[in-house]
């Protein structure tokens, strides 16, 4: 992808007390914006999406519901076949042919045929998975909701998930070494501590703290928006699959994620505020066309673990390492944000994660992951596998982003335009 385009609709809020060049100020020379009508195809003018402050001062836009995701462009034969399928009527089935769908594409076209080791970073596969999962979150614009649990879609997704799981297993062993097949609960917690405490490769958070440019920091937020605008939702699938003290531990964490029920304090809303501060498009899934496979992977892995009861161990291990590797990077992101002139209120997203995740990591390690390993000892290896996927995905993401930036390229599939004033 080489086309240059702008993915940042302007915003209407007035800004105060900002240093020149800060995110959200009218800046010169760095990341900038075109007028809304120059946005990418399929994106409505920004002014349709911006809700001005009403007379009570209530920022209604912040409280709005997410809308279904605008369909992205395909990235290969499988995602293309899936998008064709999703354009048809899911209830139009031929009697006697269970799961068959005469109006859709040939179902062989929904099978991904690459090697497992390539699955985690394959754009076509990750986009297909992401689309299939988003049917279960905010939905897909113009797509019949009947597709969410349609046998044709589920059969295809089962194949994608299997090859992805094989790829994750191969890559985690390759990069992190073999895992203990039958760890005790104490060994599970110790394995998580080791993963959390080990530095592997160059530090993305260190770069963002000290060196990243405004455009690089914006790119980072664009990547992260795919998860943070639905922050906590993929892990929440796990709640009904747990019970007792382990469930209570997860609830304690998710309560904070959802701001104790206060909409403005929900972490996804804090991230939305942060995106606006950086003049980014805060629509749910708004940047799906821009992000590479590894960014979709980060979201897909949690959806996969969350949507299958049999992966509840991996889900808790994933959440545990997620929380255990959050406070310190977020403190660094906060410093990068402030160094680049980010707004103090928007920094709440990072500050909240430093404080909340220092609590969460203890609960997640000892009561959630450790607790599940004690009550269902046969899940021990799976809990560690879930944690190892966090480390793997973090490493793949950091390598991709720092690799691109290190050679002067964008880490996105389409570059944010710079140089306009």
């Amino acid at each position, binding site marked *: 992808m080489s086309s240059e385009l702008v993915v940042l609709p302007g915003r209407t809020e007035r800004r105060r007390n900002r240093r020149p060049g800060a995110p959200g100020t009218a800046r010169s020379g760095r990341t900038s914006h075109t007028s809304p009508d120059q946005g990418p195809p399929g994106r409505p003018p920004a002014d349709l999406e911006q809700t001005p402050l009403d007379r009570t001062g209530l920022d209604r836009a912040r409280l709005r519901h997410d809308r279904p995701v605008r369909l992205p462009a395909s990235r290969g034969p499988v995602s293309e076949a899936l998008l064709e399928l999703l354009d048809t009527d899911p209830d139009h089935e031929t009697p006697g042919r269970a799961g068959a769908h005469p109006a859709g594409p040939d179902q062989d076209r929904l099978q991904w045929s690459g090697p497992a080791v390539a699955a985690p970073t394959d754009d076509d596969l990750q986009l297909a998975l992401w689309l299939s999962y988003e049917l279960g979150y905010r939905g897909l614009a113009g797509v019949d909701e009947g597709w969410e649990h349609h046998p044709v879609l589920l059969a295809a997704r089962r194949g994608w998930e299997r090859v992805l799981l094989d790829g994750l297993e191969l890559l985690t062993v390759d990069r992190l070494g073999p895992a203990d097949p039958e760890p005790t609960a104490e060994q599970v917690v110790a394995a998580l501590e080791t993963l959390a405490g080990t530095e592997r490769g160059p530090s993305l958070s260190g770069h963002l703290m000290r060196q990243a440019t405004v455009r690089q920091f914006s790119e980072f937020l664009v990547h992260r928006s795919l998860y943070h605008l639905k922050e906590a939702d993929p892990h929440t699938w796990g709640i009904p699959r747990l019970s007792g003290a382990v469930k209570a531990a997860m609830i304690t964490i998710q309560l*904070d994620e959802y701001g104790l029920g206060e909409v403005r304090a929900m972490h996804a809303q804090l991230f939305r505020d942060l995106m606006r501060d950086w003049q980014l498009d805060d629509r749910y899934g708004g940047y799906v066309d821009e992000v590479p496979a590894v960014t979709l992977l980060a979201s897909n892995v949690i959806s996969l673990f969350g949507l299958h009861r049999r992966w509840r161990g991996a889900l808790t291990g994933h959440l545990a390492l997620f929380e255990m590797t959050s406070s310190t990077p977020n403190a660094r992101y906060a410093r990068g944000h402030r160094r680049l002139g980010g707004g103090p209120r928007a920094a709440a997203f990072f500050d909240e994660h430093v404080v909340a995740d220092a609590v969460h990591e203890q609960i997640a390690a000892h009561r959630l992951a450790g607790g599940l390993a004690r009550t269902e000892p046969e899940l021990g290896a799976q809990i560690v596998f879930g944690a190892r996927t966090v480390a793997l995905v973090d490493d793949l993401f950091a390598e991709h982003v720092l690799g691109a930036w290190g050679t002067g390229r964008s880490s996105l599939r389409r570059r944010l335009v710079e140089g306009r004033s």
Partner: protein
Amino acid sequence: MTGPLRRGEASITVCPDGPLLVRGAVRLEDAEGTEVDHDRNVIALCRCGRSARKPLCDGSHRGSRFRDPADADGIAAALAQPGGPADDPH
């Protein structure tokens, strides 16, 4: 984990090599007794001394040499130790 916590009852969880988790309706105040308002469900108080956000924990213990296994036996032993705070005549 012990018995059910009554509503409004506070608990302190001593985390191995980590902070103290304080949960429940507990008043937070400085040494002079000035109360500090907060709306957090659980707070983590630094034990290692490395936090940049004291008295709260910021995860910095992971890079520190602070070690305390903090199991129930160890906590009980510390409380019962002859010459320890409980027996200190001063």
